[in-house]
C-alpha cells in the first residue's frame, strides 16, 4: 500500500490566484493512497523544501507529488530534496498546475481547481507505478580527441594538455596550422601571425601530452560519451621523418607538376613536396594521387618512377609504406574541422577558374606572405606585372540565397579591408576598389580599421554587386553598379580578388555521419543551443569549435576553442559520468528483431544484439526521446517510468472526471 504525499505550491500568486489551493489540498487528501497533503507559498524555497523533507521522514512517504510549475523548472530541485532524506528521487513527480492549469484558466477558479486536482491525481497514478531508479554511472576516459589541427584544434588541445589531459590531434594535411598558416598579417592590428602561430605549433609539437596524427582522418567512431573509440587512418607520407634531413634533393628531381593547393594554384609542386613551402623546417611528403610511381603501378605501364628514392642520400623514402590504422580511446571529442573556400569556378560570370588574374582571398594572402611564392610582392599571376588597379569583390557566393550560399561568411569584409590596405601600403600609386553590399566591421576596433583604410590608404568602397568580370586582352573588365550614385560602373582592373564564401570542409557529410553529429542545411555542425550551448553539439561528448560550426574570424574561433576545452575540463573533473536513468528499455520476449528502432534513433542508442536477434538499448547514450517507442510496431519498447500503461491510467483519470466540483 503506497503512502503518498502531495505538496501544492502557491507560486506566489501565480497559481494561488486562479486555483483554490486549500480546496486542492482537500481534494488531494481524498485520493487513494494520499496520507499527507499541504500547500505553501513557495514550495521551491528552502522552507518549502524542508516541508517536503520533513513529511517524507515523519510519515514514511514512499511517493511524492509536488503540484507546482513546469518540471523543467524544479523537478531536479525536488528530486534532490527527496533523495537527501532517503526517498528515491524517481518516486517523485511534478504535477504542472501552473503552465497547464492556473495560467490558462485564470478566470475560472472552480474549473481551474477541479483541473488541478485531476492533474494531481494523474501524477499520483504515475508515481504509484514508478520504479525506484539509480542514475546510471558511466566510466570516463579522461583523454580527448581533437579532429582538425587548425587554430581551433591547436588552442583547444593546448589548454586541455596544459590542464593535464592527453590529447590526440587528427589532422588531414601533412602539417597543422590550417588556413591561418596561409595568412601572414591579421586584422585589426596588423599582427605578425606566423610568429604567433609558430609558437603555438611548437608548443603542440613539444607537448608531452599531445599526440599528433598527420595525414590522418577518422576512419570510424564507436562508443558514447566518456567512452569513445576513435579509429584513425593515416595515409603514408612515404618520407621517414626520423631519417630525412630536409636537404630538398628529392624536390628537384620529381617530374610531376601539379597546382599547389597551399598556394591556391599560384604555383606548381611535384608529387613530392613541402606542404607549406614558406616553412623550411617542414619535411617533404608524397601525395600518392599525384605520384607517377603509383599511377604507373596501377596502369602496369613502364618503369615505376623512383627518381626521388634514387636522389635521396639518406634512404629516407620508402614507397612501399601502406595506410595503417590506429586507435585512440577518449572521453570527449572536439570537432574543429574548419572551412574551405567555395570554389571560384562556381562564379563563371566573374571568370572564376578561367581567368588567371581572378583569384580568391586566400590566394591573395599567399601573394602577401613574405615567405610566399612572390616573397610578399603583389604580382599578377598571368604576367608577373604589378597590378595598378585591383578590384576586391566581397560577398562572392555569400548572401546569395537563389544560387549560392544564403549566409554571410563574416570575416570577408575585414580581411578584404586588410588586404586592400596592405596592397596600398605596398603599391602606393595603386587603386583598390572594394565592391560591397554592407560593410561588416562589428567587433572592437574593426570599425576604426576600415575607416582608417578609407582615410589613410584611400580605399574606394563601391556599394553594389559586381555583375560581370571578363578579360579583354590583358585587362579585366569589371562591370558593376554604384548604388549610392545610381550609376553603372565599368572598371578596367589588373587583378580581381574574390572574397569567396566560406563553406564547411569537403567531406564533412561523411565525417558527420561517422561521428554521429548533426549538420545543418549548409553543412555546418549544429550546436545544441545557439545562445546557451554554442560549443556543444547535439551529441553528448562531442564539442564544436571554429568555422566548422559557422564562419568566423580567428578571435571568435579561439574563444570557441577555449570554451570547448573548458567544457571538457568540467566533464573530466569527475571520475565518472552520470546519466539519467529515464531511458528506453526493450521487452525481450515481444521484440521481433525488425530493427526499425535502430534506424529511427537519432542518437545511435539502439543496436541489434546479434546473438539474441533482438534489439537492445545503450542506456548510456539514450536520451529518452521516445522515437523508438512510437516506431516499434510490436510495442516491444517502453520508456522507464513513462510506460504506456502509466499514461493510460493518467488519461483515464482525466476522462472520468466531471468538470466542476
Amino acid at each position, binding site marked *: 500500500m503506497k503512502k503518498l504525499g502531495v505538496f501544492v505550491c502557491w507560486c506566489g500568486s501565480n497559481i494561488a490566484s486562479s486555483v483554490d489551493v486549500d480546496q486542492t489540498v482537500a481534494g488531494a487528501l481524498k485520493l487513494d493512497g494520499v496520507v499527507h497533503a499541504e500547500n505553501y507559498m*513557495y514550495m521551491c524555497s528552502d522552507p518549502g523544501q524542508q516541508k517536503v523533507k520533513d513529511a517524507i521522514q515523519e510519515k514514511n512517504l514512499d511517493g511524492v507529488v509536488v503540484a507546482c510549475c513546469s518540471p523543467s523548472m524544479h523537478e531536479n530541485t525536488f528530486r534532490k530534496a527527496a533523495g537527501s532524506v532517503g526517498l528515491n528521487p524517481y518516486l517523485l513527480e511534478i504535477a504542472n498546475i501552473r503552465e497547464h492549469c492556473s495560467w490558462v484558466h485564470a478566470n475560472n477558479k472552480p474549473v481551474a481547481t477541479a483541473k488541478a486536482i485531476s492533474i494531481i491525481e494523474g501524477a499520483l497514478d504515475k508515481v504509484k507505478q514508478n520504479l525506484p531508479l539509480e542514475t546510471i554511472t558511466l566510466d570516463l576516459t579522461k583523454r580527448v580527441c581533437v579532429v582538425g589541427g587548425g587554430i581551433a584544434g591547436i588552442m583547444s588541445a593546448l589548454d586541455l594538455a596544459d590542464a593535464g589531459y592527453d590529447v590526440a590531434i587528427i589532422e588531414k594535411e601533412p602539417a597543422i596550422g590550417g588556413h591561418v598558416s596561409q595568412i601572414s598579417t591579421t586584422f585589426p592590428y596588423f599582427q605578425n601571425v606566423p610568429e604567433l602561430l609558430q609558437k603555438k605549433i611548437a608548443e603542440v609539437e613539444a607537448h608531452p601530452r599531445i599526440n599528433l596524427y598527420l595525414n590522418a582522418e577518422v576512419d570510424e567512431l564507436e562508443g558514447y560519451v566518456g567512452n569513445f573509440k576513435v579509429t584513425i587512418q593515416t595515409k603514408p607520407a612515404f618520407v621517414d621523418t626520423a631519417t630525412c634531413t630536409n636537404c630538398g634533393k628529392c624536390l628537384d628531381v620529381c617530374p610531376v607538376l601539379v597546382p599547389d593547393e597551399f598556394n591556391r594554384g599560384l604555383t606548381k609542386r611535384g608529387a613530392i613536396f613541402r606542404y607549406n613551402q614558406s616553412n623550411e623546417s617542414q619535411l617533404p611528403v608524397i601525395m600518392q594521387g599525384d605520384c607517377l610511381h603509383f599511377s604507373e603501378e596501377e596502369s602496369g605501364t613502364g618503369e615505376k618512377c623512383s627518381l626521388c628514392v634514387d636522389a635521396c642520400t639518406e634512404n629516407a623514402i620508402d614507397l612501399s609504406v601502406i595506410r595503417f590504422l590506429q586507435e585512440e580511446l577518449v572521453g570527449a571529442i572536439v570537432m574543429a574541422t574548419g572551412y574551405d573556400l567555395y570554389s571560384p569556378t562556381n562564379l563563371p560570370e566573374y571568370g572564376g577558374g578561367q581567368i588567371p588574374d581572378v583569384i580568391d582571398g586566400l590566394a591573395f594572402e599567399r601573394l602577401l606572405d613574405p615567405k610566399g611564392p612572390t616573397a610578399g610582392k603583389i604580382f599578377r599571376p598571368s604576367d608577373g606585372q604589378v597590378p595598378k588597379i585591383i578590384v576586391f569583390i566581397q560577398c562572392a557566393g555569400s548572401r546569395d540565397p537563389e544560387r549560392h550560399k544564403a549566409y554571410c561568411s563574416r570575416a570577408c569584409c575585414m580581411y578584404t579591408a586588410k588586404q586592400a590596405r596592405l596592397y596600398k601600403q605596398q603599391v602606393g600609386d595603386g587603386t583598390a576598389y572594394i565592391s560591397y553590399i*554592407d560593410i*561588416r566591421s562589428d567587433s572592437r576596433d*574593426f570599425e576604426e580599421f576600415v575607416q582608417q583604410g578609407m582615410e589613410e590608404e584611400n580605399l574606394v568602397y563601391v556599394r553594389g554587386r559586381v555583375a560581370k568580370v571578363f578579360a579583354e586582352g590583358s585587362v579585366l573588365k569589371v562591370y558593376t553598379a554604384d548604388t549610392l550614385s545610381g550609376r553603372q560602373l565599368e572598371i578596367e582592373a589588373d587583378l580581381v580578388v574574390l572574397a569567396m564564401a566560406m563553406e564547411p570542409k569537403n567531406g564533412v557529410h561523411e565525417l558527420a555521419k561517422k561521428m554521429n553529429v548533426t549538420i545543418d542545411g549548409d553543412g555546418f555542425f549544429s550546436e545544441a543551443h545557439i545562445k546557451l550551448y554554442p560549443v556543444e553539439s547535439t551529441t553528448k561528448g562531442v564539442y564544436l569549435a571554429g568555422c566548422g560550426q559557422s564562419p568566423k574570424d580567428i578571435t571568435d574561433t579561439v574563444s570557441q576553442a577555449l570554451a*570547448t576545452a*573548458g567544457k571538457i*575540463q568540467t566533464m573530466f573533473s569527475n571520475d565518472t559520468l552520470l546519466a539519467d536513468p529515464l531511458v528506453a528499455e526493450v521487452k525481450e520476449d515481444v521484440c521481433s528483431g525488425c530493427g526499425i528502432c535502430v534506424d529511427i534513433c537519432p542518437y545511435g542508442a539502439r543496436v541489434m544484439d546479434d546473438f539474441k536477434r533482438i534489439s537492445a538499448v545503450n542506456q548510456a547514450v539514450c536520451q529518452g526521446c521516445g522515437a523508438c517507442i512510437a516506431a516499434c510496431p510490436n510495442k516491444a519498447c517502453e520508456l522507464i517510468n513513462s510506460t504506456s500503461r502509466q499514461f493510460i491510467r493518467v488519461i483515464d483519470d482525466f476522462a472520468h472526471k466531471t468538470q466542476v466540483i
Partner: protein
Amino acid sequence: MGDVLNLNVNESVDRTIAAEPVIGPCAFGNLEELESVPLDRRVMVIGGGICGITAAIDLGNAGYQVVMVDRLPSIGGRMLQLSETFPTLDCAQCTLTPRTVETGQHPKVTLKMNCEVEKLDGGPGDFKVLIRQKITYVDWNKCTGCGTCIQKCPTKSAAMFERDAGLMTAIYTLSPQAVPNKPVIDADRCRYLTKGKCGVCAKVCPVGAIDYEQKESLFEVNVGAIIVATGFDVYDWKNKMPELGGGKIPDVIDGLTFERYLSASGPSAGAMVRPSDGVEPKEIVFIQCVGSRNPEYHKSYCSRVCCMYTAKHARLYKHKVRDGQVYIFYIDIRSTGKGYEQFIQQSVSEEGIIYIRGRAAKLYEENGKVMVQGADTLTGRKVEIAADLVVLAAALVPNEGALELAEILGLTCNKDGFFVEEDYKLSSIETERQGIYIAGCCQGIKDIADTSAQGSAAASKVQVFLSSIRRQKQNVV
C-alpha cells in the same frame, strides 16, 4: 526622476501573474563553503550576467567553489530585461531562468549581491579581494522572499530595471523571477528613509527582516583566480545627443526600453503602446547606429548587436501590430552570425519592413507625432517621416565603474573603457595580470552566443591555471 508613467493600466494588476515563478532563497549567506577548500579551488566571478553565470556553472560543475559578486540585487544581467532573443525569437526568460536558478541553487556557487569590489591585494593564485556590501536595509539572512513587503509598499515610482518606463515599489526585487528573490530598499525612493514616514514593510514583515539601521559592511574574499564579466550599459544619448530630443520627447526611447515594452512582464504587460498616451503606434521608426560609428562626437566603434536586435524588434512589433509600418534607418546591416543573414532577409521579404539607408539627423515633436528627418542615400533624397514612436539603437558602452574596477584590479582599459586583453586574436580572455580573466561585453560588445562562449573560455583558462598550480604542488607535470 523622470515622468511618472500613466499607462491607463489597471493599477491593481499584479505583475507577478504574467511572469515566471518566484524563486526561493539560495546559498548566499556566508563564505564557509568557499573557505573549506584550498585556494586553487576558489574562483571569484565579478558580474552575474549570462557571461558570469556560464563561467560560474562551468566552474561549479568542475568542482570549484565560486563566489559571484554583483552590484545588483539579483543575477541575470541584461538578458533579464529582454523579451525575446534573435535569431530564434526564443523567450529570453525561458532560456535564462533555468540558468539563473541553476546558479542560485548550485551547491558550489555563493552569491554576493549588492556588492562592489573595493580593493585587490595579493597575486595570482592568492588574490585578496576586499568587497563592500552596500546597504540594502533588508537582512537577507532572515528574509524568506515571501514578497509581502513589496505588495504593501505604497510607493510606486519609475524604475531602473524598467528603464523608467514602468513603476516599481521602493522596496523591490528586480523582477518577479529574481535570483535571489530577496528585496532591497531604494533609499532615494523610500518614504521612510527620506521623510521618516511610512515603515509599512517593517510592520508587515513576518520575520522582522527590515533593518532601517543597516550599515555598509566590508569583507575580504581570498581566491585563486578572478573572472571579470561586468557587461554593458546603454550610452547616455539623452544628454549627449540633443538633436534626438534630449530625452524630453516621451515617444523617443532606446532599444533596451523597447524591450521592456515588448516583454510580457514589462510595464505594459507586452501590449504595444506609446509612452506618451498609451495608444498603439501604427508607424515606428527605428534608427540604428545612434552614438556608434561616430568618431567625431560619440563612439567610433560599432555596437555589433544593434542591427540584429532592431530587426528583431521590428518583427516582434509587426507580430503584435499586423497593420503597423516599420522603417529602419541604417548604414550597413551587420548580420554575420549563424542564421542571422536569413533572419534579416525574412524581415524584409516576409514582414514588409522597410530599410532606409541613411542616418536620421533630427527628431522633434509635432502634433503628437515625432518627426524624423533623415536621408535615403540610395535615392539621394531627404526623407521625413511622421512617426508614432521612435526607437534608437543607442551605442552600448562598458558598464559604469569599469574604469575604476580596472584600476583596482590592475588592468588596462582602452579608450572606450573596454578591458584590454593580452592578445586580441589568440587570447581575448587573458589579461596582463595572470589569474585575472575578462569575458563578455566588458571586453567588447558581442551577442549572447559569443558571450556564452567567452564565459566558458574564461572558465577553461581558470581551470588550466589553477590545475597547474595544483599539479605544481604535487610535483606532477
